[in-house]
């Protein structure tokens, strides 16, 4: 079983368009949406939810006002400025800013009156669903949720378990943008990362950084340039940057007005007959399936 993750660094380069097409072309795959804070794959694949559960990994400090004697030990110990005081004099109370709190528990441990505890906070939801292309695991992080990397890991893990149980050959993962915790969590240990870049000044800079992340993580990756004809010069520059890093090129997808039309109709590009982007993506998929996996 091989795990293939579509990543980009920059947002909006076409990760979901490409992954949805891969899902339609794969014969026996489990699909996973690891963009847990702004998931979109379900809008194309229209999953029918079979199973779901809550995700609560984030802990926050909770103060029991009856035991708190406002000694302020916790306020000075907190490194995240998550504890503030409200009121004055004898009415002075300590309050927790739950957005700033990282759940480290230092306040709980320094409190002489044992007035603080850590409580789990509901942080999102996960789903196992059925789609027209096979099983799909997806999730939704609560607004402003922390630990998105952990939810990403949970989605990947569930997809792998389903793949092993059903004898699927592949897990296809739609990754999050960026380079920090959710992207690292989506990329760690995958068999191949398909990097989608767009030929813009921003896209070139972002590609270099995600390619450096791949090297840092010692991950195998390949390049796809989307909407390549928007700027052929920058496309070539991105491809050179890939070659210099030993990243193979899997192909170019042309600017094609039928791509947004297909997304608006909740169809994959591969379900649109004979459009130029479709042809390009089918060729890229052949590279993915014939890639010599380690």
């Amino acid at each position, binding site marked *: 079983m091989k795990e293939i993750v579509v990543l980009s660094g920059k*947002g909006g380069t076409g990760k979901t368009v490409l992954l949805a097409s891969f899902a339609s072309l794969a014969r026996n795959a489990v699909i996973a949406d690891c963009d847990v*804070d702004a998931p979109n794959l379900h809008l194309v694949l229209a999953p029918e939810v079979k199973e779901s559960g809550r995700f609560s990994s984030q802990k926050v400090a909770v103060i029991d006002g009856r035991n708190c004697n406002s000694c302020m030990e916790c306020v000075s110990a907190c490194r995240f400025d998550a504890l503030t005081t409200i009121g004055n004099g004898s009415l002075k109370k300590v309050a927790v800013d739950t957005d700033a709190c990282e759940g480290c*528990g230092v306040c709980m441990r320094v409190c002489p009156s044992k007035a603080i505890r850590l409580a789990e906070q509901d942080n999102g939801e996960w789903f196992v669903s059925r789609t027209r292309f096979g099983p799909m695991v997806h999730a939704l992080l609560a607004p402003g*949720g922390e630990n998105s990397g952990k939810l990403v890991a949970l989605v990947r893990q569930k997809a792998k378990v389903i793949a092993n149980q059903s004898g699927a050959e592949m897990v296809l993962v739609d990754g999050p943008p960026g380079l920090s915790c959710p*992207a690292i969590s989506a990329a760690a240990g995958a068999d191949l990362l398909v990097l989608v870049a767009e030929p813009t000044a921003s896209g070139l800079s972002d590609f270099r950084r995600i390619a450096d992340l791949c090297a840092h993580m010692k991950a195998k990756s390949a390049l796809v340039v989307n909407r390549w004809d928007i700027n052929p010069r920058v496309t070539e520059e991105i491809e050179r940057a890939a070659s210099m890093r030993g990243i193979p090129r899997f192909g170019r997808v042309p600017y094609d007005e039928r791509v947004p039309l297909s997304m608006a109709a909740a169809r994959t590009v591969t379900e649109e007959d004979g459009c130029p982007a479709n042809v390009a993506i089918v060729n890229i998929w052949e590279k993915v399936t014939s890639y010599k996996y380690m």
Partner: protein
Amino acid sequence: MVRIAVASGKGGTGKTLVATNLAAVAKNAMLVDLDVEEPNCHLFFTVSGESSEVVYRKVPAIDKDKCTLCGNCAKVCEFGAIVSLPRNIMIFDELCHGCGACSRFCPEDAVEERDHAMGEIIQANAEGLRGLVYGRLRIGEAAASTLIRRVKKRIPSDGLSVIDCPPGTACPAVESVRGSDICVLVTEPTPFGFHDLKLALAVTKKLRVPRVVLLNKVGLPGPDVEAFCDSNDIPIVGRIGHERTIAETYSEGRLLCSSDGHARLFRSVLSRILEEAGRP
């Protein structure tokens, strides 16, 4: 002082396009790029006099002479960054949040804290701006929010600041929008853009930051975002068409407002935003 945050939910809707052009037409604005994972605003300006400051976070270091392998440091670490083995204490820097619990609660005073570079803050002069400041996260670092908080300390306490935020609705996006006077949600009228706009609205609501919408790529097929905004009393501060020439100009790293028509557009967007920010 006015702080305008430019955010979106979905990536690639045009946050950087809007932030750079708004800052450019504002004259004397501070442009703050908080997309520390993939900072791009500086690519659109001629910059000079760059200065950079390395940002560190604290990670533990064990003094082996003092350590008795009692394992208390591992026990108090809520992030699993310390593992206590029979003959050794292992530390995973990438999981550490720098809370200081391990050193504070070590009975032998054997845990010191050392500096771990997590990125840098770059400040520069940029033509047509009061200045430009941005963060750049070191490759492989997980905690973007920590660096974002540090870059935010450079936002001046007077004048106008335009803040380019990272995509998404998780902690880095929230930290970037927090404390702004108004948030401009750049959206595209596609099913993806509309879906993520609704997620981003949950963030501005949670933070109680006033929000307005700027519609980009108008003409793309999808749901009626205008009707949604109207029925939810969300002001639309401007519209940018879905034109290939705009994508091409952007791709070259050029500002749209170098053309008169687009300069007028962004000036009108800016005055609408300031008007909305001034409402009680």
